[in-house]
C-alpha cells in the first residue's frame, strides 16, 4: 500500500490474454469460412437430391487423382478439430481469468445489460453449440443416431430426418444460438484482429456481423423447413 512501486507478484500463468483472444478470433473466422462452405453444400438440396449427393461425394474425392480419396476431407476435419480445441481452450482460459479477476460479485442489478446477454450467448451459448456439433456428427456423419432408419444416400438421410418436426426444432434452436454467437463473434474477431480503427469502421463491422449472422441462419434453415413443409421430397 505504501508505494506504487511494483510489488512482487506471482508471474502470470499461461499466454498473454491478447494472444488467447487472437486464438479465439482466428479459429472463429475459420469456422465462419467452414460454415459458409457447409451452408453452400446444404443449399444444393434445393437443386435436387442428386446434386446434394454429388456434392457430398465430391467432398470425398476432392483433389483426386492427385490425392487419395477422403484425404482433403480428413485434412479439413483435423484442422476443424484443432480449431475447436483451440477455440474452446482459449475461451475457457479467458473465462477462468475473468472469474479470478472478480471474485466478489455486485449486489446491485443493472436495469439494462447489453454485455450480460452477449457474454452468456458466447459462453453458455458456445457450450450449447459444442453439444449440438457432437449431436450433429453423431447424427449425420457417423450415423450413430438414426431418426428414421438408415439411408445410403446422404440426401435421403437429410430428407427423412427433417421430415420430423422435433428434429427441425433442434436444428432451428441450434441455428439461433449460432446466429447469436456469430453476431458477437464476428464483431469480436474484427476487434481482436485490430480492424476497428474508427467509429465509422465500427459501424461497418457491426453491419458485416449482422449480415453474416443473418445469411448463415437463413441459409441453414431453408433446407430443413423446406423439407418439413414438403417442398422437397
Amino acid at each position: 500500500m505504501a508505494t506504487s512501486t511494483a510489488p512482487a507478484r506471482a508471474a502470470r500463468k499461461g499466454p498473454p490474454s491478447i494472444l488467447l483472444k487472437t486464438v479465439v478470433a482466428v479459429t472463429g473466422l475459420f469456422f465462419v469460412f467452414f460454415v459458409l462452405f457447409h451452408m453452400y453444400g446444404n443449399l444444393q438440396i434445393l437443386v435436387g437430391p442428386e446434386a446434394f449427393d454429388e456434392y457430398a461425394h465430391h467432398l470425398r474425392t476432392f483433389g483426386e487423382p492427385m490425392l487419395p480419396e477422403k484425404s482433403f476431407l480428413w485434412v479439413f476435419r483435423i484442422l476443424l478439430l484443432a480449431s475447436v480445441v483451440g477455440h474452446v481452450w482459449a475461451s475457457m482460459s479467458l473465462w477462468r481469468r475473468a472469474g479470478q479477476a472478480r471474485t466478489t460479485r455486485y449486489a446491485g442489478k443493472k436495469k439494462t445489460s447489453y454485455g450480460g446477454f452477449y457474454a452468456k450467448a458466447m459462453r453458455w451459448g458456445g457450450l450449447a453449440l459444442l453439444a449440438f456439433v457432437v449431436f450433429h456428427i453423431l447424427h449425420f456423419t457417423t450415423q450413430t443416431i438414426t431418426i428414421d432408419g438408415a439411408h445410403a444416400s446422404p440426401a435421403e438421410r437429410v430428407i427423412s430426418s427433417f421430415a420430423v418436426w422435433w428434429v427441425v426444432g433442434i436444428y432451428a434452436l441450434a441455428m439461433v444460438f449460432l446466429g447469436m454467437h456469430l453476431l458477437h463473434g464476428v464483431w469480436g474477431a474484427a476487434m481482436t484482429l485490430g480492424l476497428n480503427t474508427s467509429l465509422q469502421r465500427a459501424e461497418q463491422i457491426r453491419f458485416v456481423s449482422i449480415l453474416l449472422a443473418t445469411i448463415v441462419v437463413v441459409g441453414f434453415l431453408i433446407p430443413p423447413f423446406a423439407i418439413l413443409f414438403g417442398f422437397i421430397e
Partner: protein
Amino acid sequence: MKLALKIWRQDGPADAGQMVRYDIDGVSEDSSFLEMLDLLNEQLITSGEDPVAFDSDCREGICGMCGVVINGEAHGPERTTTCQLHMRSFNDGDEIVIEPWRADPFPVIKDLCVDRTSFDRIIQAGGFISANTGSAPDAHATPVPKEDADRAFMAAECIGCGACVAACPNASGMLFMGSKVTHLGELPQGQPERGARVVAMTEQHDLEGFGGCTNLGECTRACPKGIPLNVISQLNADYRRAGYGGSSAD
C-alpha cells in the same frame, strides 16, 4: 427527497464486509450524489456512527478519484462521473445500492474506497514517452497531422477512474490500457517505443490479474469520457505488430 441506501461497509482490507441499510431524508435534488453521501456522513457522525469512507477529490469530473457502483452501474445511471451525478436523476423514495468497484486488482481499502495502484503500475511499465527534461527539440520541429492529434487527444481524455474495469464482466483493464496506447501511438513522438510499450503494458495488465477483453463494450458505456471501444482494437493491432509479446521490436 427521502431515500433508502444500501451501502457496502467494510472496515479494512481484511474484513469480510456487508451491505448496510441507511434511511436518509431531506436530500436536495440539486445536490450531487457525493454531497448526498456527505449529508449522510454528517448525520452518522452526529449520531456517533462511523461515517462511510469514499474517495473524491476535484468533484468536477476530471481527476478520476471518485467512483462507486450505483444500482449495478459504474458511476450510476448517467454517463458521467459519480461526483457529477446529481440527485435529480433519482426519484423520491428510491432504493439505491452503493458498492465499491469490484475487481480483484482493485482491492477494497475501506467501505467504498479501493486501491487502484495497479493502474499506476501499468503506466510504469511503459505508458510514457522517454523524453528527459531539456532534451526536447522545438515544438514545431515535428508537425502532427490534425487527424492524428485529434485521435490522440480523444484517447488522452481518459481520467483513470477505473469505471471500465468496474463495468466489464471480465474486469478487464483494456479500455484504460488501450486509451494510453492509442494516445501515445498516434503521435510521431510515441513511435520509437510503440512496440515495447504495448508489450510491457499488456504484460503488466495480465500480471495484475485483470481479465481479458471480450469486446462487449460495457466499458465504453460506463466511461464518463466516452472513450470508444476502438482503442482496444488499436491495442490489439499494436500488440500483433509487436509480435504478440514474443519480440518487443515493432
